């Protein structure tokens, strides 16, 4: 039997994308999903599942789609993944499940992410997500979850279902972590995140916003005053800088500030909303990851004429999801590759006017396996921009570590945990980016699930 081509995800036409923040990837239709599912070879050794950080039984749910038993497909996914509508949209499938797919060797792996998303969206439309509350009776134990990103959401949901009284503490005024303040609407509609947050509420989880653990309460106070265990999922959100001259000139943003103003504070609706944002004519975004793509595509939607990704290696080494690189290019983001900024140039009012850059070439592979960029002497040039967005990564949020000296951290400030998320402090667990360093939504979820398992085990013994 000849192998059929992979079904392509329908997308919003480029002209329409530029006028709004509407979701770009539209999702497969039922027919498309079934057709794609039928391509699956159902390999007996499930290579795809081994590529999934949370071990979803992928061939099984795909088989259910092929049989049009979407409800069962949904159940199978949910066994391992609490937030499939989100991961179906943002997982880097090309380096996980889809990379391991047998068909990948022939160039066109099954569109596992698109199928996962299809099932999750189907369940939302059918109202199944709503019905699903199954919960054990209260066991009288209290667990605090610090941070409401994917790690915190997972732990809170798992433990609430097991009968724990869970309180989530979130520093910002809105729960969701990076899913809310970082990833833009056109890639992850906020109503989907809200759905997950509402699900937590219906499970009886109390979500307390505006509480900064380390300031409003310390970890020790939480343990002393009420909680039997604490999970820390505070993420990696403290921007890194290039440490080059001029980085504090006016109109240089960190990606976090740029995206937070827009996604969390709705600056794109200024002055209806009070928070302003400035996007110039020519924007340079420094970095090659998801965050850089999100910032670049957002800048275009806000009216920038030209947006450049300035990246020191080549497109091959870019850590961003492949789909987002393609989307960015379709939308007109330009790539200034093998280029490293050395200095920001300002005018007499300290307003950004350009970036002095140097050309790079690729050398030997480094610790990450990617070829190391090396500057080419004498190749400096000026790159004119009036807005720069620095998207070169983040350190873990350090507040809790600094106010909890007993909590052991590694040299990058990540909280040290065992395989099950146990920290050096009794009854204190951690997961997600704050333990892993910058990782992914699915990894945050996976470590959250392990921690909730450990918390349940450890507290049962008490």
């Amino acid at each position, binding site marked *: 039997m000849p192998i059929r081509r992979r079904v392509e995800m329908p997308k919003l036409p480029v002209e329409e994308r530029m006028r709004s923040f509407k979701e770009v990837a539209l999702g497969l239709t039922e027919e498309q999903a079934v057709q794609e599912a039928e391509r699956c070879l159902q390999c007996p050794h499930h290579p795809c599942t081994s590529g999934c950080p949370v071990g979803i039984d992928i061939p099984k749910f795909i088989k259910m789609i092929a049989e049009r038993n979407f409800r069962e497909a949904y159940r199978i996914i949910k066994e391992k993944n609490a937030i499939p509508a989100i991961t179906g949209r943002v997982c880097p499938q090309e380096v996980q499940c889809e990379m391991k797919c047998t068909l990948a060797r022939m160039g066109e792996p099954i569109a596992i992410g698109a199928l996962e998303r299809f099932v999750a969206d189907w369940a939302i439309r059918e109202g199944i997500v709503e019905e699903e509350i199954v919960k054990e009776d209260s066991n009288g134990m209290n667990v605090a979850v610090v941070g409401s990103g994917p790690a915190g959401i997972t732990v809170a949901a798992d433990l609430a279902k097991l009968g724990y009284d869970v309180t989530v503490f979130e*520093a*910002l*005024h809105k729960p969701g972590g990076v899913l809310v*303040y970082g990833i833009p609407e056109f890639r992850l509609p906020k109503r989907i995140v809200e759905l997950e947050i509402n699900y937590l509420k219906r499970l009886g989880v109390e979500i307390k*916003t*505006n*509480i*900064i653990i380390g*300031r*409003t*309460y310390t970890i020790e106070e939480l343990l002393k005053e009420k909680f039997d265990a604490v999970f820390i999922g505070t993420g990696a*959100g*403290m*921007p890194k*800088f290039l440490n080059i001259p001029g*980085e*504090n000139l*006016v*109109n240089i943003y*960190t990606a*976090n*500030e740029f995206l*937070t*103003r827009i996604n969390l*504070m*709705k600056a794109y609706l*200024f*002055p*209806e*909303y*009070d*928070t*302003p944002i*400035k996007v110039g004519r020519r924007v340079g975004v420094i970095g090659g990851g998801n965050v850089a793509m999100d910032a670049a595509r957002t800048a275009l939607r806000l009216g920038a004429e030209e947006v450049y990704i300035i990246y020191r290696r080549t497109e091959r080494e870019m850590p961003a999801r492949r789909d987002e690189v393609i989307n960015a290019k379709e939308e007109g983001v330009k790539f200034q590759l093998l280029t490293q900024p050395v200095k920001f140039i300002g005018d007499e*009012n*300290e*307003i950004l006017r350009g970036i002095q850059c140097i050309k790079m070439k690729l050398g030997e592979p480094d610790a990450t396996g990617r070829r190391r960029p090396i500057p080419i002497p004498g190749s400096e040039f000026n790159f004119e921009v009036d807005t720069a967005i620095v998207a070169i990564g983040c350190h873990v*949020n*350090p*507040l809790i570590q600094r106010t909890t000296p007993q909590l052991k951290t590694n040299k990058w400030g990540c909280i040290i945990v065992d395989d099950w998320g146990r920290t050096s402090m009794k009854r204190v667990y951690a997961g997600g980016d704050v333990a892993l360093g910058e990782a992914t939504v699915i990894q945050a979820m996976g470590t959250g699930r392990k921690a909730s398992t450990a918390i349940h085990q450890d507290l049962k013994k008490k």
Partner: protein
Amino acid sequence: MMCRKFEILEKRTLAPKIKEIVLYAPEIARKVRAGQFIIVRVEEKGERIPLTVADWNRNKGTLTIVFQEIGVSTYKLGKLDIGDRLTDIAGPLGNPSKIENYGRVICIGGGVGIAAIYPIARELKKMNNYVISIIGARSRELLIYEDEMRKVSDELKITTDDGSKGRKGFVSDELRDMLAKGVKVDRVIAVGPAIMMKVCADVTRPYGIKTIASLNPIMVCGMGMCAACRVEVGGKTRFVCFEGPEFDAHEVNFTELMKRLNAYREEEKIALEKYLKKIGEVKPNAN
């Protein structure tokens, strides 16, 4: 009485466009210390803005904040009345002021900065420092917290730009003369407009007196995540919200701070004009 979270319990007008409100926020009130601030959002479409906590009552669970109506957010805040609620208050943020027995300390407050220096002066006094306070405003009617400051200071000096009260001139002029007269000082703490803090730092620099400034940059998150508030201190980029707000004034790049404070001047004007039009006030000096 049952108070609701973030409810306004008291409100006073201290001077034209300068208001004091007392808020119910018990979780913050139990923890806050001198020098810390909160981030508030007045309403659903509002910005996140930082405000220094001027006073608190742990038993009653209240915070006192003082603000000047300058931009759209502070205007909206000033429009709220007793019984109204703010949408969000997060805190306490920033590091508390270092309160020790230093000996003789000069506390300087300019404009609404006087309300911010007040709890710091009070705590320093409690630690048996000899507290000399210098407070200043543009004119007599804009001078706030005079009585409060008098109570917590061993000496109180007043300056106004126009000479309508106290000495004519700036707080930095008073500081300069004091030091020139040979008053021995162990520490200076200044809170106020960036330019005031810069000049005070310039005055104390030749004397080598440890001088602290509490910085007031634009902020968004308040927890070290966005870096909107970053400023160069001692040649390094520092986050005011998370590593400050107090820094060694001799190391702060005030020029940069002032430029960054002006980054959104046009947008701020647009937002304020739109708001004033909406509520039927034409010029930003009614009220």
